[in-house]
């Protein structure tokens, strides 16, 4: 409206604009530039896609993230709706416990998995007692899977619970009044109603798994995931161009996933990335 107001608005936006410009937009452009101005130029991306190690890592990471996302959605979807719909003693405690790991950094999650399934872990101990063979999962793909599941479940549960809270119960009652069985109600009413929440939290879950560094770092697995490769390229091989190219690829995948989800869900993404 009035001109003076516009001036105030611009002034108020300045701090964020400056911070973002200086420490996000320009560096990201610089990163893009760094990936394309090596001796091979854009050929670097071709090299990335044809070198076995890089391609394998990329596929592993995507596969792992997809698997984790699917598993998380199933587990957290069921438990989230269950907790939202039922009241029993100790429920609040249970919810608090389930959301406690929300604030764990990746390294702590890695450590949790070591304690659970590492060489001196609980699972190893139990399997040794039971079968005589020690089962060690932590340092393999399974360990990574468990770790990613560990930090994904709490986030998705909170979103699912929030979505389930808003569902209009009369829809389900209407379906039941029309003769639908429990499974039909779940399939035809509940899941469609949960869909926006599932899509957006699933996308966040996927993106976080793609970019997770701390967990893999702590577990020091024999399977490299993309963030670890980026890290080693940068620090150990000083291959800045390749590290940049891999980062950009990673960034594009995660951003693309979130963008697609947002378009598909049509709403806002829950801010719990």
């Amino acid at each position, binding site marked *: 409206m009035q001109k003076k107001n516009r001036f105030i608005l611009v002034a108020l936006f300045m701090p964020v604009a400056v911070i973002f410009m200086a*420490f996000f937009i320009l560096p990201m452009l610089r*990163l893009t530039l760094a990936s394309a101005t090596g001796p091979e130029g854009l050929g670097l991306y071709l090299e990335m896609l044809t070198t076995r190690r890089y391609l394998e890592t990329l596929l592993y990471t995507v596969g792992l993230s997809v698997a984790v996302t699917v598993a998380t959605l199933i587990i957290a979807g069921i438990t989230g709706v269950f907790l939202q719909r039922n009241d029993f003693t100790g429920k609040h405690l249970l919810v608090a416990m389930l959301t*406690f790991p929300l604030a764990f950094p990746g390294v*702590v999650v890695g450590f949790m998995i070591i304690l659970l399934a590492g060489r*001196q872990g609980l699972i190893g101990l139990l399997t040794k007692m039971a079968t005589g063979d020690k089962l060690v999962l932590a340092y393999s793909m399974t360990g990574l899977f468990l770790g990613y599941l560990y930090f994904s479940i709490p986030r998705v549960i909170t979103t699912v619970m929030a979505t389930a809270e808003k569902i209009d119960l009369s829809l389900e009652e209407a379906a039941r009044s029309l003769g639908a069985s429990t499974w039909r109600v779940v399939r035809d009413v509940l899941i469609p109603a949960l869909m926006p929440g599932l899509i957006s939290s699933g996308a966040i879950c996927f993106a976080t798994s793609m970019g997770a560094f701390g967990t893999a770092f702590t577990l020091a697995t024999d399977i490299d995931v993309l963030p670890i490769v980026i890290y080693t390229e940068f620090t150990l091989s000083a291959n800045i161009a390749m590290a940049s190219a891999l980062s950009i690829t990673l960034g594009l995948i995660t951003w693309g996933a979130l963008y697609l989800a947002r378009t598909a869900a049509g709403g806002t993404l829950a801010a719990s990335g």
Partner: protein
Amino acid sequence: MNKRNHLFYLQLALTLMTCAFLLVPVIQSVLAGVTVNYFVGIKSGLTLRWLGEVWRLYSDTIFRSIGLGLACLVVDLIAGIPAAYVMVKTRSRFTRLLEEFLVMPLAIPGLAIALAILISYGWWTDFRSSWLIILVGHVIFTLPFMIRSVIAVMTAINMEELEEGAASLGAGFPKRFVGVVIPNVLSGILAGSLMVFTLSIGEFNLTWMLHTPFTKTLPVGLADSYASMRLEIGSAYTITFFFMIIPLLMAMQWVSRPRTGRAATEDNTEQARMENQSQLSETTAPADAAASQAARRPGTSIRLTRCAKTFPGGTRALESLDLEVAAGETVVILGPSGCGKTTLLRIIAGLESPDEGGGIFFNEDEVTAIPIEKRNVGMVFQSYALFPNMDVADNIAYGLKVRGDEQDKIRARVDEMLAMMQIEELRGRPINQLSGGQKQRVALARAIAVRPRVLLLDEPLTALDAKLRDVLRVEIDLLLRSIGITAVYVTHDQAEAMALGDRIVVMSKGRIAQIGSPRDVYFKPANRFVADFIGTVNCIESKMADRCLTFPGGCIPVDDLEGVDVTEGGMLNIFFRPEHATVVEAGQGHFQAKVLSAFFLGDRTRLLVNGDTPEPLKVEAPGRQAFRKGETVDILLDLEALFTLSEA
């Protein structure tokens, strides 16, 4: 699904298993951190040795993390809150793009951001080796959370309207921002702050890339301790971390839990009270001596010249129009939803500027360029825009405080307003414990407390139920008359317009369709739109033949009509209202028609009849007579009340 059948227990089992998966390692780490020998287990005894060791080795990382978290929080608050405000205020395509940019740090892995920052600023050794580079990374990572959290609350509380409310009472930008915006988004700021601090404390991906041996943070230290392969130290360190985040998580839960105690008063009891009160007010009139002081003041006239409004998107909300409102007059702007009523009112208020060339005058003062807070208008918003951070008395006092009046004067005026609106007992109530009708009264009191030059009301009764609406309509009418203020009242309800307006401005599609007294618009509508919008109207197509207006089924001698001027053989549409066509005894009417349906209204019966006219007609029958479907009735027209219209 609430029955405890096998499904319930299956789900419970899954939930418990998930919980065990998450919790068992936490318990293990807690035990490991306080037992003497991890491999032997708890039997080896409990000790605090490892925690002491952690303190000796890593306390600097803990302090650094707390410091970083606080610094990050400060930056986010200073930069984030204003940015959120701007983004809520300017909803445009450009803002959408900005939002997209602002959420990118959520989408792009920390590692990539860290790499980008390193490549760009790594050469700057002083910066690279200080904790500032980590701070920068944390700010980029956490700022979107702060902004989103604040935006969410700003949108939820309808901040813009609150701000407009404050502006209409005279508050300039700094006062509005500090006094109204910030206090009402505190919950968002608090939630955002906790989130930012927690995220900053636990951030690892960025920090690992950006840290140096001298700038290790807590998660970096944790990674070191895990890598050192001493499980008990790692566990003890993890316990320390748990202790730091548990209070943060609990605070977050507390902040986000739903607040109870909303809208305590039921509208039903409220209604009963109001009805008693309105009887009271008919005898005493709500506005008494106090208010009539204001009436003595010479009123303010409003004049709009060539005011049009085109919104940035290209919507033409208002065609160029002129309008005059005399001092002390109540003008009602009436029209269907979307016709530009609100836009017109906001132009008068100073919340929108008219397109180039338009002018707004209060008496002889041109106020076109004067912002609302300087215009001295009182405004009542459709959703009331009461400030939830203040109680009833503070809301009413707000405009006076902004003007810098003395305490005593303010108190006296607030008392006066509370008495005038008969809401003395609500003085200290928080806003969210008021019923709709009570809010309405507070909003009115707040608007007139500052003795505005003109009072502007945008559909003030729409949010209330029908009965309350009638009561309050009477009260507003009495109030406006007794304080004699110039008022512009916007509504889409024609009954409201008829009851309240000295004059009615009927609007259609951004234009004024007619201006006139309620009688004028009802009895002499300027065109078909007005006739249809206000009340019900019948139309008969007739033809002039033998000095008679002839229509299928009957005729009216033209000599009985005034001012009808049609040549022989010409066509003419005759209009009349249902109450001007009554059922009479057989043989005494102008024409006959068949009853299609009858609606008994108590004092009369409304009939839908079909003459030989193309459309059914609505007519009325007084008294107790009952009608059968298909019955033939005679209908008499009140010839004085017939009218013709120019087609428009």
